[in-house]
């Protein structure tokens, strides 16, 4: 099992599959309960399609970079699996879409097939595949599912149906990986004793501009 201080998770797939928001979702949920997190995103210039990947590094301590060694890869298609599996550390976990056949010679990694889309459809919210992933992750990194459920409740506040579907997706993902050994058990975080924001660089520039007294943006 990896050390208890941090975990690096990479999501790889195609533009439009929710890959970009997945890392942010994990990081936001983790920081909400006191972990430190930082994301990295790289995507093609097409609005839809094209290889896309994002990464979230979650730690008990402040982090400064996206992290070198991937503990868990979520590969939404075969290209993503082939392209990124060499970045997964020995002993790391790869979650695969059923359409992807893992290389039988790959004995370095624990490959687990998860029917993301099929499980999502069971919730009545086909776009909840991300939440199926998060549910599975909560098992793999031994993070209480309530962290994610609280995040969902806050994110979709006032939309009870959406919250219910996403909670169900989290439970389905967790149940699907219930028999898997966690790859890490992140020690409970020491919640920072100061007020925090979870924002992107662009937004931080905008907030700074408003504080500085900007009057005209063109």
């Amino acid at each position, binding site marked *: 099992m990896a050390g208890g201080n941090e975990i690096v998770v990479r999501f790889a797939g195609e533009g439009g599959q929710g890959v970009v928001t997945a890392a942010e979702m994990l990081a936001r949920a983790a920081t909400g309960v006191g972990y430190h997190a930082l994301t990295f995103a790289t995507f093609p210039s097409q609005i839809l399609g094209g290889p896309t990947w994002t990464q979230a590094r979650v730690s008990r301590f402040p982090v*400064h*970079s996206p992290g070198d060694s991937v503990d868990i890869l979520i590969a939404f298609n075969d290209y993503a699996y082939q392209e990124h599996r060499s970045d997964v550390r020995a002993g790391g976990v790869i979650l695969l879409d059923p359409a992807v056949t893992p290389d039988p010679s790959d004995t370095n990694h624990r490959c687990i097939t998860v029917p993301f889309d099929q499980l999502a459809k069971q919730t009545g919210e086909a776009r909840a595949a991300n939440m199926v992933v998060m549910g599975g992750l909560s098992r793999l990194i031994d993070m209480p599912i309530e962290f994610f459920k609280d995040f969902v409740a806050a994110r979709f506040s006032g939309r009870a149906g959406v919250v219910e579907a996403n909670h169900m997706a989290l439970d389905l993902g967790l149940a699907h990986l219930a028999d898997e050994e966690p790859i890490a058990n992140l020690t409970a975080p020491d919640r920072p004793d100061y007020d925090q924001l979870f924002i992107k660089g662009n937004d931080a*520039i905008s907030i700074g*501009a*408003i504080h500085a007294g900007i009057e*005209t943006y*063109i």
Partner: protein
Amino acid sequence: MVYLERNLVGEGKVAIQASSEIESITGILGAGFAGKKTMTATSGPGFTLMAEGIGLGWMAEIPLVVVDVQRGGPATGLPTKTEQSDLLTAISPAHGDSRMPVIAPGTVEECFYASVMAFNWAERYQGPVMLLSEHSLAERAQNIPRPDLSKVPVENRDVYTGNNGYLRYEAKGISPMPVPGKPGAYVANGSEHDVFGDTTHLPKYHVHMTERRFGKLELLEDGDYEAENTKAKIAVMPWGGSKGSVFEAYEALKAEGVDLGWYYTMFVSPLPAKMLEELKCKDLVVVPELNYQGQMAMVLRSLGVKAEAITLYTGLPFGAKELAGRIKQLLAEKGERTGAAKA
């Protein structure tokens, strides 16, 4: 842009989506001339399109902020990949004799402070300031301590309050800026001008105005910087969004016993004067940066610093472990014994 559209509201405030970069830069030139605090943001070729307007801002001495979120180039290049390859362009985007102040934040938290300081610099020296971000930093989401706004001072330009007949460009250094419609009318001129702003080609005015414009940059040399293990003969100095990866590489090397100094500032042009003097005393300053030419190392060498770049131009950021190895390799090539070599 989306954030400002939602939040830049209230009387006298406006966020507009212009139809072109030229429209954006000329729009904020007008707003800056009219006394407003103003900003635009762009990336890649859009920044190049703004070059002429930025030059006008330097010439006519109009405060404004241009955000350039760097991505791979040139031309359309790698529009959604990260790179640090606009440094030279940001320092000198316009033709002719000019040098723009450049602030390049290295973390999400610094993006906030860099933005405030970009406005402060623009107001203080009365001219354009380049805020140099990059794709990986723009898209990076991170938890940061909530900024204590009471500890972030905001500067405002020195406004002219006298009578008409004011010679706006007479002083050697900074001079109060009139507000259009109020006493002190002058010509904000893109051509070389006399002390009132009227066009002239006389050598004495071009000398006076050129020295005036460059002289104002001295007002910006007091930026903060980080320094650690300053006695080491060799230092590492990242800039911009590579800061985090380089810091982790530095920490790893320090743990191995490598005697390496650390220098960092987001005020990349002009550099803090005291920091520059310290860098000049080093046998070697290693600059990891995401471009082919080693642009910051080039700038440092032009300032008298013995600098050498470690470059990466894949469209992706540095990995800390790999970078630590490359720094050790460079030190070994330079004949420096590292902690690991001693072991």
